[in-house]
């Protein structure tokens, strides 16, 4: 067996096992960490497909930022695991139907049966690129020439989403008390402390 075959099966095995772990593990934090492992192993497989830019971006964006914030939220939640598991059996048939549907769609789009939407037929005679071939450069070239409009529109949509998310968090409720460091610093002694003159007396 070639070493690349071995590496592929090792990483693919980890992807499948950790993806199962995401659904099967009892602790939501463990699920989130399994998802991180899934992303990471996926990125290793992409690297073997000579898609180094996508692979590293997957780690950089999803593992390095998105999952960190996700983990944050999950860590803060007080989840009653037993209650969450309650409906498992009754939801199972619906879940299976959806899983099978998704699988069918994926096979139809990517697999050998349906119309060749993704251009997978061309993959059969794919060429191995030389070591100095830069995937990043090739991707950048088409992204900023042929697909520049779609790319810019996607960027604007993301920007709108960012601004929307920020405005949502800027909501201030009158009942909540806030600490304002500026005000805390501006406090003078006279605002808090009053010195009263009184005669000395003996305490009993």
């Amino acid at each position, binding site marked *: 067996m070639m070493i690349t075959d071995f590496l592929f099966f090792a990483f693919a095995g980890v992807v499948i096992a950790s993806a199962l772990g995401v659904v099967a593990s009892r602790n939501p934090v463990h699920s989130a960490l399994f998802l991180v492992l899934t992303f990471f192993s996926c990125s290793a497989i992409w690297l073997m497909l000579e898609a180094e830019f996508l692979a*590293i971006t997957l*780690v*950089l964006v999803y593992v*390095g930022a998105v999952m*960190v914030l996700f*983990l944050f939220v999950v860590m803060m939640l007080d989840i009653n695991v037993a209650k969450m598991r309650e409906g498992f059996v009754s939801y199972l048939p619906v879940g299976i139907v959806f899983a099978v549907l998704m699988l069918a769609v994926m096979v139809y789009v990517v697999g050998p049966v349906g119309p060749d939407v993704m251009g997978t037929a061309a993959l059969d005679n794919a060429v191995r690129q030389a070591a100095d071939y830069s995937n990043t450069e090739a991707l950048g070239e088409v992204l900023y020439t042929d697909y520049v409009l779609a790319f810019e529109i996607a960027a604007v949509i993301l920007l709108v989403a960012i601004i929307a998310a920020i405005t949502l968090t800027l909501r201030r409720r009158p009942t909540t008390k806030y600490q304002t*460091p500026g005000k805390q610093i501006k406090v003078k002694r006279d605002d808090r402390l009053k010195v009263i003159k009184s005669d000395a007396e003996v305490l009993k």
Partner: protein
Amino acid sequence: MNEMIDNLLATGLEMWSWFPADWQTFLLILGKIVLILVPLMICVAYITYAERKIIGYMQIRIGPNRVGPRGWLQPIADAMKLLFKEVIIPTKSDKFLFLIAPVLSIMPALAAWAVIPFDRGMVLADVNAGLLYVLALTSIGVYGVIIAGWASNSKYAILSSLRVGAQIVAYEIAMGFALVGVLMASGSLNLGDIVEGQAGGISSWYIWPLLPLFFVYFISGVAETNRAPFDVAEGESEIVAGFHVEYSGMAFAVFFLAEYANIILISALTALMFLGGWLSPFEGFVGADHWLGASSLFWFFAKACIFAFCFLWFRATFPRYRYDQIMRLGWKVFIPVTIVWLFVEAVMVVAEVGPWAV
């Protein structure tokens, strides 16, 4: 005598050729990894000594001077002490995550060295997307801290891990944008090519056209490593020791090693991207046959040492930032500065006023 050495070499070579080709590559890579990591670990050990000594002198103390001549064996004594201490696992902690957290913390700090070029061609993996690889790996270092904080089952630890998470995600963006500036100047993601693009003496280093990005990058680097003045992760006066409060013995030592390995990594990266890595500052002034004019490992080491010294200097000088000020600096100062400078740089590139040839 000479014959004997020749014979030994010949037998060695013959034994080497017995290995299949795959194994030879594998062993060669393994040897290179050891060649990088062993000096790195020694540097990590001695930067802790340097820190105590330098901060000592800055505070008009002597620092460690008891173990060995002038205290030179202090790091070894510390390591021995930590090795023999018991690793205590808190009762209600998540044992597996608790133990794997230090590993997750040091792994990216070491793995990033794979693409760092020490001299022309002296690099373990000469990959095209080297800069992205470094950025991706430094961004996953935060998992060690977050998992340590959560798995410890301690409120101080989790408070600290929340602080670190938010801080690192914030500063990573500024760091990434600063690197985009370097990428625009060099036109390459390969760290070796980035260094070669700065050839021609001290005046053609990227630090001059990219001065604001240099400051943003280095200060973000200090924040990424959770060093003073951004060390709210372990703010002793607020949350005891932060995320590693429940760790003892070697498990704690690994976090410690990771922090110092990260310091060296950030110093080396800053030297590579803004100060021309292994290139000599006197290129063009002194002939390349003189050691001052020749580019060598020495220059890379010297430049990295300057930045490592800055890390220690900052710790001795600045008081700790307040948390909201850290966030304001990251989001409202650094990110706008980098974006504005990227525009300026783009104009410079189009107008061809920069020192780079596109």
